C-alpha cells in the first residue's frame, strides 16, 4: 500500500483526533490519521479523566477554560449519538503548606482575571463540599465548580467519528516506522503497511513522538514517565468534585459511572517505557486515599493500570513547528495534562497548520524555547 496525503497525523489519541477533526472542519482535505494500535491505546486511554480550569499561568488557564467550554457543547458540535460523560462536579485542590497557600492565592488572582469561577475555601467549607474529607493538617483549598470529569474513550471516539464523517481516513493498527525528509522538508512517512507521501506531518504520538522525530534528526526533549491509576467498584454518588493534593501527589474522583478513579505520582519513577502496574503503587495509593478520604477504605479495587506522561523539561506541551524544518508540526509533551486541553489544542493546531492566526497565542509552547532556555513554568501540575 503506497499512497499520498495532504496531511498525515501520527497518533490516535484525543489530541490527534481533535486536530484531525478541526483540520477537516476548516476544509482541509486528504487527511490521514495513523495509530499504531487502537484509538486511545496510549496516554489518552490511560489518563485520570479529570478536566480543570484551575491552572497557575494565564496561558494554561485560557487553554483549559476554552476547552471546558467546548466540552460543554461537544456532543452537539461533533454530532455524537452517545455521551462523553461530562460532569462538572468541580475540583478541590488542597493546600497543606504556607507556600502552597500563597501559590494558590496567586493562582486565584490569575484565574479571576480570566473569569474562572474558582474560590478559596476554608477547611470547614472544604468539608461541606466533600463531607468525608479528612481535614487534618489542611490549611485550606481552592474550588472551581466548573471543573470535573469527561470520558477519554468517548471523547476521542466522538472526535474520530466526526472527523471520519468529514472525510478523514483513520488507519488503526498501522505503525509509523520513520519519517521521511529531504533537504529540510517532510516528504512522507514509512509505515509497516507501506509509504504515505505527504508534505505535512503532525506529530502527536505522546512519548513516542521523540523516537519518531529522531528518525529525521530532530531531538525532542520528551521523556516517558510511568504514572499509575486504580479504579474501584461503583457505588452511589457520594463525592462531587475531584479531590487533588499536590502535597500527597494524588488525585481522586468519583466518575459518573459510580466508581472512584485515583492516581498517584511517584517522584522517583525511572524515566522509561513501562506499562506494568506495581504492588507498591496499590499499597501507597490505598494508604494515602484512605487517610484523606476515610470511607473509601470499604471500597474494593477492581483494576489498576499504568500509562506514560510524555514529560518535557518544563512539564509543558510543545505546540507548533520545528524551526528550519518544513512540514513538521508538533503537539506532544503534554506531561500529564493533555486530555483536558484537547478541544482547544486541536483548534489552535489546525489554525497553526493552515497558516492562520491562532485564536490564542501558542508561541510560548514552541519547540525552540528549550534551546533559548525560556522554560515555561506551570506551578499547578501533579
Amino acid at each position, binding site marked *: 500500500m503506497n499512497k499520498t496525503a495532504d496531511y498525515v497525523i501520527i497518533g490516535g489519541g484525543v489530541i490527534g483526533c481533535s486536530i484531525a477533526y478541526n483540520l477537516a472542519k476548516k476544509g482541509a482535505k486528504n487527511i490521514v490519521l495513523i495509530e499504531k494500535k487502537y484509538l486511545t491505546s496510549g496516554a489518552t486511554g490511560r489518563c485520570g479523566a479529570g478536566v480543570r480550569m484551575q491552572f497557575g499561568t494565564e496561558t494554561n488557564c485560557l487553554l483549559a477554560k476554552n476547552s471546558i467550554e467546548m466540552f460543554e457543547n461537544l456532543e452537539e458540535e461533533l454530532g455524537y449519538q452517545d455521551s462523553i460523560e461530562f460532569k462538572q462536579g468541580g475540583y478541590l485542590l488542597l493546600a497543606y503548606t504556607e507556600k502552597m497557600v500563597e501559590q494558590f492565592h496567586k493562582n486565584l488572582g490569575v484565574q479571576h482575571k480570566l473569569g474562572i469561577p474558582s474560590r478559596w475555601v476554608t477547611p470547614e467549607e472544604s468539608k461541606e463540599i466533600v463531607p468525608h474529607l479528612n481535614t487534618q493538617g489542611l490549611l485550606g483549598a481552592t474550588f472551581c465548580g466548573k471543573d470535573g470529569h469527561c470520558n477519554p474513550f468517548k471523547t476521542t471516539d466522538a472526535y474520530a467519528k466526526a472527523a471520519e464523517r468529514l472525510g478523514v481516513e483513520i488507519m488503526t493498527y498501522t505503525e509509523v516506522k520513520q519519517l521521511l525528509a529531504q533537504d529540510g522538508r517532510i516528504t512522507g512517512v514509512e509505515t509497516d503497511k507501506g509509504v504515505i507521501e505527504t508534505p505535512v506531518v503532525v506529530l502527536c504520538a505522546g512519548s513516542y513522538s521523540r523516537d519518531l522525530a529522531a528518525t529525521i534528526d530532530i531531538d525532542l526533549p520528551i521523556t516517558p514517565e510511568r504514572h499509575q491509576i486504580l479504579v474501584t467498584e461503583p457505588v452511589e454518588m457520594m463525592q462531587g468534585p475531584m479531590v487533588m493534593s499536590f502535597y500527597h501527589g494524588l488525585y481522586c474522583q468519583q466518575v459518573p459511572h459510580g466508581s472512584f478513579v485515583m492516581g498517584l505520582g511517584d517522584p522517583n519513577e525511572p524515566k522509561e517505557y513501562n506499562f506494568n502496574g506495581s504492588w507498591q503503587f496499590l499499597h501507597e495509593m490505598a494508604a494515602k486515599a484512605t487517610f484523606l478520604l476515610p470511607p473509601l477504605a*470499604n471500597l474494593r479495587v477492581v483494576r489498576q493500570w499504568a500509562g506514560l506522561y510524555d514529560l518535557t523539561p518544563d512539564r509543558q506541551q510543545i505546540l507548533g513547528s520545528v524551526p528550519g524544518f518544513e512540514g513538521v508540526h508538533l503537539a506532544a509533551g503534554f506531561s500529564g495534562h493533555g486530555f483536558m486541553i484537547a478541544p482547544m489544542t486541536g483548534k489552535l493546531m489546525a489554525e497553526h497548520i493552515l497558516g492562520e492566526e491562532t485564536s490564542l497565542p501558542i508561541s510560548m509552547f514552541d519547540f525552540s524555547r528549550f534551546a533559548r532556555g525560556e522554560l515555561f513554568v506551570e506551578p499547578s501540575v501533579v
Partner: protein
Amino acid sequence: MCQEKDKNLTILCRCEDITLDEIREYINQGVTDLEQLKRLLRVGMGPCQGRTCTPLLINEIARATGRPVKDIPLTVFRQPTTAVKLGVLAGGINHE
C-alpha cells in the same frame, strides 16, 4: 442499560449490565476489536474483570468476523486478580 421492554434481555456482561443486543449493535457498526468494545461499552470492566464475559465476547466477534476464536486478541489482564478493599491494601488496623 436495558430499559426498553422489547429488547433482547440476554445479559452478556453481568457486572456492567450489558446485553447481547447492545454488543451486537456495536459489532454490526464495525467495532470488532475487543479493546474498543471494552472502552466504549465497559464490557469486562466490572468486578469480575471479564472473566465471565470475555469468552462469550470472543465468540460473538469470531462469529461476526468469520475469524477463528484463537485469532481474536484478548485484552490485557490487570491486577488485582480479585477485588480487594482499599482498607485492606492500606493495611490499616483502623479499617476492619
